[in-house]
């Protein structure tokens, strides 16, 4: 079975600083997708960034980037120039190319300190 582990239940970062959220996963398949989702308090879950496992290049979306280490099965999210609006619960997720189910981690609650 696929599992996704987020070992940091809570993180905090000073505004304008950089923070990295950790995620590891376990799968025996070689073709899959990895995601980071953001869920602000009482608001909708939105997709932050996506990585295809077959791509070696790390995905980036503006201030958000990932460090994808396929051999280590690690998929961390780096948020640069943190803003107050980045405060949210962040979920790491994995989806195999075969099948439709997403596997979510337990989430990391990010606090941004003004």
């Amino acid at each position: 079975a696929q599992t996704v582990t987020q070992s940091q239940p809570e993180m905090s970062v000073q505004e304008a600083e950089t923070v990295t959220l950790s995620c590891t996963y376990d799968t025996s398949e070689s073709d899959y997708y990895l995601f980071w989702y953001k869920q602000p308090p009482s608001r909708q879950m939105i997709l932050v960034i996506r990585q295809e496992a077959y791509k070696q290049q790390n995905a980036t979306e503006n201030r958000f980037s990932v460090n994808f280490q396929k051999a280590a099965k690690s998929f961390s999210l780096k948020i640069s120039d943190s803003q107050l609006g980045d405060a949210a619960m962040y979920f790491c997720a994995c989806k195999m190319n075969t099948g439709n189910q997403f596997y979510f981690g337990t989430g990391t609650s990010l606090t941004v300190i003004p």
Partner: protein
Amino acid sequence: SAVISQKPSRDICQRGTSLTIQCQVDSQVTMMFWYRQQPGQSLTLIATANQGSEATYESGFVIDKFPISRPNLTFSTLTVSNMSPEDSSIYLCSVGGGLIWETQYFGPGTRLLVL
């Protein structure tokens, strides 16, 4: 990405009653998913709903408790039946997106409190 709406956004219900949650998408989608997010926890997939076929339920979830309808390609409902306080959760619908449906986009969720 798809625009997804859910009704109701929140509700407070008495135990033993049932609540039907609606999910509407602004485009036709093949696959819709229903998740439960219990307080302070991650998302758990309840079932996958394809139009024209029976929903596929994950382990621990049964049709009698969570009946699902999928009458067309833009709409689905999830009913939480015979509710108990343990059913208090956020219920989210999502749809597959992307070139090969590899990404999921989520609705705003329905916050349910069962007294």
